């Protein structure tokens, strides 16, 4: 996942599990597709665009990068229906 490189602390904060969690979140609620091997080999732009979509939906700062605020929101309890009908 694209993570913020502006602040090196951000990079340290997200573990592999955190990134997998964020990936699952985008798959569940933002229709993010992985390739048949199940690895996110598609360009990071796709993930970034889904992150941007999510950040825009929730009125967060739209960066396309995983930051603390976006990750916090992903962890909040919520409805399982995707935010994008498509």
């Amino acid at each position, binding site marked *: 996942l694209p993570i913020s490189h502006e602040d090196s602390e951000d990079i340290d904060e997200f573990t592999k599990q955190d990134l997998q969690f964020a990936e699952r979140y985008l798959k*569940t*609620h933002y229709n993010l597709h992985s390739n048949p091997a199940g690895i996110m080999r598609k360009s990071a732009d796709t993930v970034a665009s889904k992150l941007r979509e999510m950040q825009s*939906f*929730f*009125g*967060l*700062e739209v960066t396309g990068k995983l930051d603390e605020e976006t990750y916090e*929101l992903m962890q*909040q*309890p*919520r*409805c*399982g*229906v*995707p*935010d994008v*009908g*498509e």
Partner: protein
Amino acid sequence: YNFFPRKLKWSKNNLTYRIVNYTPDLKRAEVDRAIKKAFKVWSDVTPLNFTRIRSGTADIMISFGIKEHGDFYPFDGPSGLLAHAFPPGPNTGGDAHFDDDELWSTDSKGYNLFLVAAHEFGHSLGLEHSRDPGALMFPVYTYTGNTGFLLPDDDVQGIQELYGAGDYDPNPKHPKTPEKCDANLTLDGITDLRGEMMIFKDRFFWRLHPQMVDAELVQIKSFWPELPSKVDAAYENPIKDHVFMFRGRKFWALNGYDIIEGYPKKIYELGFPKNLKAIDGAVHISDTGKTLFFTGNKYWSYDEDTQALEKGYPRLIEEDFPGIGDKVDAVYQKNGYMYFFNGPLQFEYSIWSKRVMRVLNTNSIFWC
């Protein structure tokens, strides 16, 4: 508000529902009541009627399940996904499923079944998730209290676009989410919190970060579930790293997300007269270590060191702060200026020269 693609909706107004099974967290009667009340949220504002059936296939089948529960959209254990529902249609269309790995409750102890069900039935009727953080159809769970629940205006507009309005709405006052650039915007309170500014309005506040142009709108309850849904005034004491919030005769001290033990307290414990009903505005002046409290047309000065109201107060606002009017909705200080909010106007008041320097619109705090 949003709709599902192709604007899916029921082609009839009389719909049936069936509660297929129950959660062990609640009595059956409690589940029945929560579900019935959740449907009423929608039937009150539309011509839709909901009838419960106890056998056979209903339009909306309601069930509790865990993990993979038969629809290939598995739940995920405690927290995370709470429930989901299908848009109107045959077979699974309209059905609502609740994750039984959650703790369901009729209050705020667990996830409130009524609130979650009302949200899910919005999907069952054709509403998609809303971007409005005040809407019932916003995807993130926030406990808002289930007594006297009022369906937010955004949801009413959405559902009425699908089905029209009903004959009689018993609660026609549907709360609107405030818009920051509204020319008539008024505010409830303003405080700093660790470098961010928090601007309170109704059950919301805007978070304004100094490096961000756009403010983020958040429900007070989603940040601090124990606080009341609306505040009268707020201020930060940066030395103590505490934020104080006032509502009616009570006030709370917060350290970040946490309410400090021993709160809420009563405002008379600060030294105010017992008959004082509320604080309108509060501001801490770092240079003097004093906090000013505004109540009606008067203000008080509180010494944070001695933790006592200063002698000689209250004084009239109009006498000591000429030009800002005779009441204060909200106030903050920055760079030697105090910014007083009174209705849709904001007064920039120089602490040094003791006069109003500029009059601005309230919404200019958001660069509108």
